[in-house]
């Protein structure tokens, strides 16, 4: 003989469980599992997920450069043919990836890129300088380069028409395009060349 209350209580608990489950599935997260029922929203969320996972950092450039685009990801949300938009982006994305690899030899440090100290100091840097700063990181540090730029002796190379800031302490040289406040063009280590002419310091240099 079973207790009739049990027969009533169990189905009620089951109903409650089903209700909780239903709320969890269709709850406050709009665009979640309910999303696929809306054909206009299926494409873009997937697109954005893919991009943020594989091409973050570069994709904004690709999207901005797309003719006719307003320059925002939102414009893809409004596209009547999301599949075409996605194809277009995918076609562009490998190029961005290839560029990153070609920059090769740009061994950027995880969590930050080379040039942060120069950037913080407000010193303009050329792309070649940034590349070499990264590629030569195992034998010269950015702080040594910054020290050479700020405190190194200024030389003018009359043969090549260039300026070099050289630190005799670290033997690091930074080539620049101007005697003061110039853009950093390259960085290397070595000895001052015999033909380099020391430039006398003047106030403000």
């Amino acid at each position, binding site marked *: 003989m079973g207790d009739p209350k049990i027969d009533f209580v169990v189905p009620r608990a089951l109903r409650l469980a089903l209700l909780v489950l239903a709320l969890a599935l269709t709850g406050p997260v709009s665009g979640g599992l309910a999303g696929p029922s809306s054909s206009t929203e299926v494409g873009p969320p997937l697109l954005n997920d893919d991009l943020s996972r594989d091409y973050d950092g570069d994709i904004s450039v690709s999207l901005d450069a797309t003719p006719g685009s307003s320059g925002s990801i939102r414009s893809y949300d409004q596209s009547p043919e999301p599949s075409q938009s996605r194809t277009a982006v995918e076609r562009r994305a490998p190029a961005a990836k290839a560029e990153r690899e070609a920059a090769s030899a740009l061994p950027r440090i995880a969590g930050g890129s080379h040039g942060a100290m120069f950037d913080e100091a407000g010193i303009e840097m050329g792309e070649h300088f940034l590349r070499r700063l990264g590629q030569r990181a195992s034998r010269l540090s950015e702080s040594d380069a910054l020290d050479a730029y700020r405190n190194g002796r200024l030389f003018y190379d009359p043969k090549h028409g*260039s300026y070099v800031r050289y630190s005799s302490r670290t033997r690091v040289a930074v080539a620049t395009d101007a005697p003061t406040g110039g853009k950093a063009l390259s960085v290397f280590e070595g000895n001052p060349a015999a033909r380099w002419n020391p430039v006398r310091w003047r106030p403000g240099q």
Partner: protein
Amino acid sequence: MSGLFVRFVTSTEAGRLYPRYDDESGIVAVESRVARDWPYGIDVGGSLICDLDTDHVLANFDLHIPRQHWSRGESVRWPNAQQAGNLVFQEATVRTKSFDATVEAIADPALRLLEIRIGDMEPHEAWALSETCVALASGDELAGFVLKLGGDESGGAPTP
């Protein structure tokens, strides 16, 4: 004499170097496409900066002579009878690091070829580091390079 003692070994992708002219810096960069660490460097007169990998294989060199300071010469020729190889610097040269040898850049009138002369040696051997970069040697000393450039006014992209 250049004082830069080298040897040539079997060519690999890591040792193949390709030139490009960087307009912003006025530097000719001749780089390997194989990204790796460059723990060793050699400076030649502040004009030629060489980067070597862990095996002392030349992985890159930068010519710090901007295009407007290249000499022009009809005699610049693409070397014949080349052998392919990787350029490896000898241990003593790697330890010395810095050399005072003169470096000259001489381009043909069309800016398609650029010869880099190191020191005053007459080169006797030519080793192809790639289709666009040849190393010149005199005995076991490095005497220079010859590069194929794009040939246009930008002097940039290597010829395929």
